């Protein structure tokens, strides 16, 4: 079976000469939630816009469910729904009209029952006859999601769906996203909120300066994050680690004042108690103890920094 989205050797250079995307290769599996992380200006939106047909690729190929997005754009685009980052809606139209319009635009016969279902799921039903201009920002965001879902897409792009959105809407939105995934929709989202990616995504990709620098199963990533560090501030400077403590695989900082012990917090026996006993036996005194877990954010920041 082909991938939901398959991007190969994609380059995008804007007219100004700016290289927004450099040799992107990416396969999104059917039915997964894929989170694309990256700092501002990394190329997240350009990548999504290129896949959706809003930006012309400079070179490379993109397939949506096996259909080339340029040669076979009708089949490809019918399968895709897009919620862009900017809140752009027809201010003077009603919610119902604008969502129905989107369905027609994507080549589907009208289906009031489906529109009703979407509006109810997004708690927009009360507002269906309101003009969009009268809605709050969060409500407008829901309208944009409703528009993207109006034609029953198999692949949904959410570009920064929770940027500037309140807690309640975020929770609603994730419920909708989960329900969509249950029904087999593939979801690709970009976000700044790393905990969001942690909670929702099956796989995580990191993009920086137009290049994909990491694609990893989220669980895999979390496992490596499961590692914690115990840092001990020593009373005295040590040149070497006492031989009696060799089995713990300790690390001594260059200053000789700090010992670092890495352990897996998910294990039953972390070995901390034994280590502290052995330190006492070896006569190594310490002033302070700290434990620390590296977050996805840190890994992400480090990854991006390494590239610079």
């Amino acid at each position, binding site marked *: 079976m082909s991938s939901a989205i398959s991007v190969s050797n994609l380059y995008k250079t*804007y*007219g100004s000469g700016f290289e927004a995307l450099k040799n992107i290769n990416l396969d999104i599996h059917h039915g997964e939630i894929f989170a694309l992380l990256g700092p501002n200006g990394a190329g997240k939106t350009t990548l999504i*816009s290129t896949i*959706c*047909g*809003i*930006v*012309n690729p400079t070179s490379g190929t993109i397939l949506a469910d096996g259909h080339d997005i340029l040669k076979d*754009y*009708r*089949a*490809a*685009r*019918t399968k*895709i729904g*897009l919620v*862009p980052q*900017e809140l*752009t*809606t*027809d*201010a*003077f*139209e009603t919610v119902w*009209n604008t969502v*129905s*319009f*989107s*369905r*027609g*635009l*994507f*080549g*589907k*016969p009208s289906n009031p029952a489906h529109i009703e279902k979407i509006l109810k799921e997004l708690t927009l039903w009360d507002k269906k006859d309101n003009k969009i201009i009268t809605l709050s920002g969060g409500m407008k965001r829901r309208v944009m999601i409703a*528009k993207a879902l109006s034609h029953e897409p198999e692949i949904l792009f959410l570009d920064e769906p929770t940027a500037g959105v309140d807690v309640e809407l975020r929770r609603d939105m994730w419920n909708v996203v989960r329900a969509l995934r249950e029904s087999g929709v593939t979801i690709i989202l970009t976000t700044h909120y790393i905990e969001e990616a942690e909670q929702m995504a099956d796989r995580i990709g990191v993009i920086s300066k137009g290049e994909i620098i990491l694609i990893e199963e989220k669980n895999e990533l979390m496992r490596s994050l499961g590692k914690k560090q115990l840092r001990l501030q020593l009373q005295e400077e040590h040149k070497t680690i006492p031989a009696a403590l060799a089995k713990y695989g300790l690390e001594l900082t260059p200053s000789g004042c700090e010992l670092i012990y890495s352990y897996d917090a998910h294990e039953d026996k972390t070995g901390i108690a034994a280590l502290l006993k052995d330190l006492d036996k070896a006569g190594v005194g310490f002033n302070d103890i700290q434990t620390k877990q590296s977050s996805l954010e840190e890994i992400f920041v480090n990854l991006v920094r390494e590239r610079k």
Partner: protein
Amino acid sequence: MNLYAIRAIYLFEMHRTWRTIMQSIISPVISTSLYFVVFGSAIGGRIPEINGVSYGAFIVPGLVMLSLLTQSISNASFGIYFPKFTGTIYELLSAPVSYFEIVIAYVGAAASKSIILGVIILATAALFVPMRIDHPFVMVLFLVLTAVTFSLFGFIIGIWADGFEKLQLVPLMIVTPLTFLGGSFYSIDMLPPFWRTVTLFNPVVYLISGFRWSFYGVSDVHIGTSLGMTAVFLVVCILIVRWMFKTGYRLKS
């Protein structure tokens, strides 16, 4: 063919017309009626007949054309410019529609509005001045052809414009003067020979002349020439739109 999309865009655009009925229908009807009152009923009686047609009746085809041209351009240019301005064009660009379908829907809606407007203005004119239509089929043909051609022209302006000023520029600075100087209020035979030759470079002359022929059977240039010139302008507009969509000009980066 994505007929649902054509229908959706067409209805959306027509809905916009009814929502803004004051601006899109009533105000052009009123402003054109003023011409009928002033030049047709009030002053017209003191102006001699032109080619056997009373002055009030003589100016009707030209005035209908004036509204048809300006309204076609402004309807179509605004229809495509506004989504570009607000950003909602993303949806159009990401939808499974061909440029042909987009043009059919937008231009179709803009032309429909102008035709409705043209018919209302004609009906209004009949209240103020005595008029007749000798060749109704040719009249309808000209009405439709002009509405479609200039809606297409407006569509091009809407894509080209990157600000509201440019959107207004072409209708106000080019189309209105060309229409006034294109024989709306006079027969170009009344001009000195030099200016008559200059006037023949004005494409609107052919529209007004042909349209007037369908009413009274008199024209400044041959009806075939009028139809031919209109068709040429239509083809030029189609080619420009085709090029714009092929290259993504001012639509896609």
